[in-house]
């Protein structure tokens, strides 16, 4: 069985027409005055899913999350959570909890009472609260900090207190607004895996808002790429990366080379483009009409660079000249100038420490790719 991105998934309720979504946004629009933050958006999220809303700032992802939490009311449309329309329910009555970007810890309370705050609001007996708080402290490994105030903690510790507080009430859904934005890179990477383990362990639905594509790719089961209040694509990280549905998504996630051309032939699962540096012959289900312009998106690591011409230099191949070389340690990035003047980016994994006669500046090379290496974009 072939799968995108070498991942076989056992958890894929979105692919099963029998499964019912846990959270449904239906035709949600949110306007602030004249500004439309979320534009007639429809989206399903499933039980136990780790779902990421990804987009640049101002794309409406935070507004969507805040509507789920209850801080904003949609201008129109409905939000269904576990079979119930929650659009009119105030935040303090919703079975969802949120972890804030600023952590929003209560500065006048100890770590303990911060974590127990939600439980006290529910009128849980004192002994039970103490027990649950201990559990939570253990979960986030902060047992010895119970009596501290938030300002007596480091950034990473505060983040864990915020997490423990939002999990203490055992919400049906945990919302995370840029949860790792304030941490440094190393800590962020560690915490990403901790969050994934936690989500698995607790069996909760997580909805995370982030502008960091790497974070979304690492953690999420599925990603919704948003732009201007609309969802552009919802898919698994591998699908988003390997089969972006538009120029925007291809460009937003990772690096990409866009090769323009005119459609010469299309059909039977193949598309041929001509007119650019490459004569592109690609495996694709897209069926653009012959004669129109189209684009072919290919990731840098899928371009092959060689000194000798490939077997069939007429197709998916172009000559070029090494323009720039960047050595990044794990890989080397080459910028290659094609005959038309267009520069493409390629990357090679540095699998060996020493390479005999490596490619150098100003060398003439051949750039080629396989028929299945890229995507024909409709636009």
């Amino acid at each position, binding site marked *: 069985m072939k799968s995108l991105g070498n991942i076989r998934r056992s958890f894929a309720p979105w692919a099963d027409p029998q499964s019912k979504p846990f959270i449904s946004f239906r035709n949600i629009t949110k306007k602030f005055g004249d500004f439309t933050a979320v534009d007639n958006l429809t989206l399903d999220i499933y039980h136990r899913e780790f779902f990421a809303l990804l987009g640049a700032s101002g794309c409406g992802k935070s507004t969507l999350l805040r509507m789920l939490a209850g*801080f904003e009311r949609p201008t129109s449309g409905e939000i269904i959570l576990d079979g119930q329309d929650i659009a009119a329910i105030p935040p*303090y009555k919703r079975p969802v909890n949120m972890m804030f970007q600023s952590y929003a810890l209560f500065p006048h309370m100890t770590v303990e009472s911060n974590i127990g705050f939600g439980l006290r609001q*529910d009128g849980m007996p004192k002994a039970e609260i103490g027990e649950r708080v201990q559990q939570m402290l253990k979960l986030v490994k902060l047992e010895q900090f119970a009596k501290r105030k938030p300002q007596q903690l*480091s950034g990473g510790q505060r983040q864990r207190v915020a997490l423990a507080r939002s999990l203490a009430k055992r919400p049906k859904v945990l919302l995370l607004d840029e949860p790792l934005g304030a941490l440094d890179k190393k800590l962020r990477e560690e915490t990403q895996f901790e969050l994934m383990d936690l989500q698995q362990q607790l069996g909760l639905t997580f909805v995370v808002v982030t502008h960091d594509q790497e974070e979304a790719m690492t953690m999420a089961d599925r990603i919704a790429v948003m732009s201007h209040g609309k969802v552009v694509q919802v898919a698994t990280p591998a699908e988003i990366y390997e089969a972006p549905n538009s120029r925007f998504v291809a460009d937003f996630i990772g690096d990409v080379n866009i090769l323009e051309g005119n459609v010469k032939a299309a059909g039977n699962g193949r598309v041929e483009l001509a007119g650019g540096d490459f004569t592109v012959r690609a495996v694709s289900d897209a069926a653009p009409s012959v004669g129109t312009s189209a684009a072919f998106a290919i990731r840098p690591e899928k371009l092959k660079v060689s000194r000798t011409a490939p077997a069939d230099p007429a197709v998916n191949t172009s000559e070029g000249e090494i323009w720039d070389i960047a050595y990044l340690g794990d890989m080397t990035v080459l910028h290659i100038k094609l005959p038309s003047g267009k520069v493409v980016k390629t990357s090679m994994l540095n699998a060996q420490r020493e390479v005999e006669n490596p490619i150098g500046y100003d060398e003439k090379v051949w750039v080629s790719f396989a028929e299945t290496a890229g995507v024909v974009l409709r636009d």
Partner: protein
Amino acid sequence: MTRWSRFNIVSVALGFAFLYLPIVLLVVFSFNESKLVTVWAGFSTKWYVSLFNNQGLMDAAWVTIRVALLSATIATVLGTMAALSLVRYTRFRGRMLFSGMVYAPLVMPEVITGLSLLLLFVAIGFDRGFWTVTLAHITLTMCFVAVVVQSRLLSFDRSIEEAALDLGATPLRTFFEVTLPIIAPAVFSGWVLAFTLSLDDLVIASFTSGPGATTLPMKIYSQVRLGVTPEINAACTLLIALVAIGVVIASIVTKQRELQRQRDEQAAVAGR
């Protein structure tokens, strides 16, 4: 350390003399044996004794304290509410007008405030006395509280309140369990400010007071017109002492809090 030049010493001495010489004179002469305010005749505390036996002054002091306590408390509640609505509901119609109007009494000449209140009380047939002074002082001090609390609220992270709502606290409980404890220092300073303003107000009290509700500043002012007695000096010295103690306590509390914050930061760094 910087060396003190002669010029610096002189300017500091002059500055302080300018500020405090009158007050020092007043305090010194409150301990004067003589009945004449300007002639020193030896140390005595008899004017303090006679002050406490002066029923008129003591009554006036009692009225002043009651007015100040009550008006400061009510002004703090109203001022905090005004500040909250001004900071929080930024999109209501007429907000600019409303916020401008809240601050107008800050710059309004007291004579005008006093006169307009007097006209109002007369028009509605409200008998002048304790309550009219209190109401007038609420009007005067509310905007000061609003300004102090508003500046604190502007730097308040709203997501803290959202977090409380999110965790199941109703808006009311959110206010009392989260917002109020956090802004409490500002609310308290607003109260202290209102209390002091009410304590030393003469103009508005003169306009709005009635029989049996003479405040201490009014009493002192009317007695001074008949000639300053050392009793007045004693009364003023006590007032100064009261204010000084308040200021000292407030600065000690602030200092302690600052030290605590520094210790917290060190603990946070060490606990990494």
